[in-house]
Structures are given as C-alpha cells and as structure tokens.
C-alpha cells in the first residue's frame, strides 16, 4: 500500500499539487447516512487558481477539509504532492493571546524553526500582506480585514517550510469562504490583494465560495458542485470568457442545479 502511494507521488510530483480520484465522503451510518460528496474527480495544476462554487450543502467545506487532512474520505483517494496545504478559514481564528507576528510564527514554532529564522519569516510574510510594522498588535486591535490578512500570512508560513520533506514541492493554499464575513469594500480590496499575492508567490489556490462574481473574478477555472451529494457538475475556464458573460452563464447553471432540488 505504502509502496504504491510513494510511486504515485513520484509520478505526479511534477504534475499537480492535488488530485482527486472518485472521492466520496459520507457522514453517519445506516439509514441516517448523509452523502456529502460522491465520485469527485478534480485536479489542481501547479500555480493554478481554482474556485469551487456551489450552494450550501454541496460539501465544499467537506472537500477542503479532506485536502487539509482534517478529515478522511470514505471512498476514493486524494493524491497530495504538495507540502502541507495551507488553510485559511472563514473566520480568521487568530490565537487571541498572541500578537500578529506571534500568530504568523506559530506554525514555524510548532515545526521547530529557530527563533531568528522565525522572526525574519514572519516579518517577510507580514510585509507580503501589507501589514509590516503591525506585527506587535494583538488580534483585537486589528480590523476584520487585517485579521484575515494575518490569517493568510500564517497559513503561508505553515506551508513554506523549505527545510523538510516539503522542499521544492508545489505549494497549495486552501481557502474556505475567507472573505464572506467581511464588508463589501474590504472584500473587494482583499480580492485584489489575494490576486497580487497569488502572482507573487506562485502558489496554487483552491478557493471555496458561494459567490459567483467572486469566483469569476478570482479563479482561472470555476468548478460548480451540485448539492447532496456534491458532484462536479461543470467547469469553466473563466480566463477565456468575458467576465459578465461568464457570470451570467454560471448563474444560470447554478439556478438550474438548485431548482432541481425543489422537485426532489
């Protein structure tokens, strides 16, 4: 078993940070089973920005949890060739007893990185999210948007350990509706920031959202999931389409998927 996994990894190393093979996930057992995901095939290429789109209950978050290793699939398998994926949740969920810099350093501290290197790395990442000089602020002294940027810097810190087994592998950033709790102006600015950071770091991003506009603006590819069970319905290479047209088309399809549930 281990041998085959290793072999798979060797092959996909140069191909993609994550690849799903007929992945399914069910919760509960017997008659109470809820199937969250069924037969999902999906691949994210190196440096690619993929948006997962779907109505509530489509298992977007479940899917992300599977990639993050917070949960195990009940069928199929996930090939992960990236170093540990970085995760940004809907809430910033910063540790309230640590400063902004302390939060960014946390994953490095748990990985045993020496203090001086930790400091330097945290300062560099805070600079990347335009929070240089605010490292000694506590989470409650920051606005929602700033907190979410600290969370992004912290997530990036958890994936960019170039010392261990992850060295040189394509990195992967998982984002679970990271901007949905923010006001519209902040969301707009942070979407721009995320695109800038994506270009600057070259990381692949798997971004979960229920906002069609957001998906079209950010992603190179938009993947639409159906609900209960979540399956891949359709994909669009939105880079090739005019923005307004893509939004219309995806909206129409999303409505069709949702209204199919009314009949059932």
């Amino acid at each position, binding site marked *: 078993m281990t041998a085959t996994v290793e072999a798979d990894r060797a092959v996909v190393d140069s191909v993609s940070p994550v690849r799903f093979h007929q992945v399914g996930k069910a919760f509960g057992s017997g008659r109470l089973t809820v199937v969250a995901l069924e037969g999902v095939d999906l691949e994210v290429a190196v440096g690619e920005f993929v948006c997962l789109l779907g109505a509530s209950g489509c298992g977007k978050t479940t899917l992300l949890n599977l990639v*993050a*290793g*917070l949960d195990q699939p009940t069928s199929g398998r996930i090939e992960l060739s990236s170093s*540990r994926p*970085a*995760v940004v*949740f809907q*809430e910033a*969920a910063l*540790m*309230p*007893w*640590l400063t902004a810099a302390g939060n960014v350093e*946390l*994953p490095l*501290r*748990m*990985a045993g990185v020496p203090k001086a290197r930790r400091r330097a790395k945290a300062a560099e990442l805070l600079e990347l999210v*335009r929070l240089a000089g605010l490292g000694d602020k*506590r*989470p*409650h*002294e*920051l*606005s*929602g*948007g*700033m907190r979410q940027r600290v969370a992004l810097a*912290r*997530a990036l810190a*958890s994936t960019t350990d170039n010392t261990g087994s992850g060295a040189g592998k394509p990195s992967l950033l998982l984002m679970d509706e990271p901007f949905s709790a923010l006001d519209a*102006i*902040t969301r707009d*600015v942070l979407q*721009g*920031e995320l695109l*800038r950071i994506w270009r600057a770091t070259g990381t692949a991003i798997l971004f979960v959202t229920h906002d069609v506009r957001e998906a079209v*603006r950010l992603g190179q590819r938009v993947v639409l999931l159906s609900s209960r069970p979540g399956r891949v319905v359709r994909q669009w290479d939105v880079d090739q389409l005019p*923005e307004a047209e893509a939004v219309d088309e995806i909206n129409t399809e999303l409505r069709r998927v949702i209204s199919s549930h009314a009949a059932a």
Partner: protein
Amino acid sequence: MPQLDLQEEGSVEAGLDALDTPVHSSEGSLARRIAARVLPPIGAIALLVAVWQALWAAAFWPEFKLPAPLAVWDQIWQLVTSGEILELFWVSVHRAVIGFALSLLIAVPLGLAIANIRVVRRGIGPLVSGLQSLPSVAWVPAAILWFGLNDRAIYWVVLLGAVPSIANGLVSGLDQVPPILPRVGKALGAGRLSGIRYILLPAALPGFLGGLKQGWAFSWRSLMAAELIATSPDLGQGLGQFLHNGMSLSDISMVFAGILLIFVVGVGIELLVFRPLENSVLRARGLNVTAR
C-alpha cells in the same frame, strides 16, 4: 477589470486599515483611575465602621458580645508591636501556600485527564464536581483520626478543598476553548502534544485562572477551618488558633481581630496576586476589564 496601480491599491488598503482599526478610548489620568477604583471600597469600609461604632456607643448589645472598634484595633496593634503578628501570618500563610502548591500539582494532571479522556470524565468528573460542594471542613474529624493532630491532617483538609475547584476550573477552561482553534492548530501542523502545549493550554488560561482564584479561596477557607478545630501546641500558632484562643478566653475583641486578620490575608492575596494576573491575561486578549 482595469489593472489598478499596485501603489494605488496599497494606499486604498492602508486607508481602509486606518478607518477600520478599532479605537480604544482612554479613561483619564492614572491618578483618577486609581481613585475611582480605590475610593468606593474605602467609603464602604468607613461606613461599616461608623455603623459599628454607633451600635457599640448605643450599647445595643453588651460589651462582651460587640467590642468597640478601637478595642479590636488595640488587639491588632498589640500583635504588631510585639511582633507576634509575623508568627501568626507566617504559620498560616506558609501552610496555605504549600497546600495550594500541592493542590496545583495534583489538580492540573487531574483536570487534563478529565477534560481529555472520556472515560475519566464520565467516571470521576461528577465525583470531583461533587467534592467541590462538600465543605472540606467535614474532613477534619477523619483527618485527625487518620493522621493525628499534625500538619498532615491540615494539608489533607486543604487539598480536599482546593483540588476539586482548581481541577474543575481547568476542565471548564478547556471545554470553553472555541473548537475552531484546535482545528486551525491541526491545519497549521500541530501534533497531539504540540497542540496541547501551543493551542489548548494557552486558550484555556482565562478559565484556569478563575479556577486558581477559587482554589486559593477554598484552600484558605479550609485551612482556617482546620486550624480552628485542630488546635495543639505542636501545630504552632496560626490565625485559626488565635481565633480559637479568643473564644476560649471569652475575649470578643480578640475574636474580631482574628476574623479581621483572616479576612485581610484572604482578600490581600487575591488582590495582590490573582487579580493583577487575571487582568493582565484578559487585557492582552482584548477582553474588557475596565468595568471591574
């Protein structure tokens, strides 16, 4: 989308940050803040003493039941000038501190076990909670029969008073950790042990401190009860024994002095040690403590 100038986008963001950053209002000068905090309790004490003095002056109760405030003060002053007060404090406080430290050593692993292991929680969780509501003074007779009239009997009573409340404080602190934090910790690469060390324990600290505070109050109470009942020349003279002597001598001013000193030590340690500790922890996390 028109490509925004990088510089410009940065300045939009900086402006947004400046607008969104929460503002904290200061509440006047340090002297005024201290006065606002210290004056009300001093006023309350002064009022209490005034009522006491008036009741005594009206001879509402006979002198052997209600002493004059001045007579009680004389008792205390005599203890101070003779240096006897140092012995009283030393005997009682060092016992309470040792008892509290022992309780801590036992309660922390116990609390961690209850919070993290389901069988342990179901098994001893209710027992520990129940022990918390059992007055530990109930253990004095048993402790004296088991250990005799010595320090071990006293520590036994203190432990049974303090351990349950410290352990329960730790358990409720751990239970109140928002579930998102350990999840985030796991996503950031925390293992089982590093998750406990870097995420769970610091997150549980406010609840744990509450438990410590209560544990101190319980250990001080239990100690006084034990000292009051278990009196023996071998045990030295603590505040509880002083109180007991006052009763034996039918000296009401001595009894009042004893009560007052026990109160002062209990409150003093809470105010000097636990309150500042708790406030600094809460303030660092942005939990509002200005109302306290």
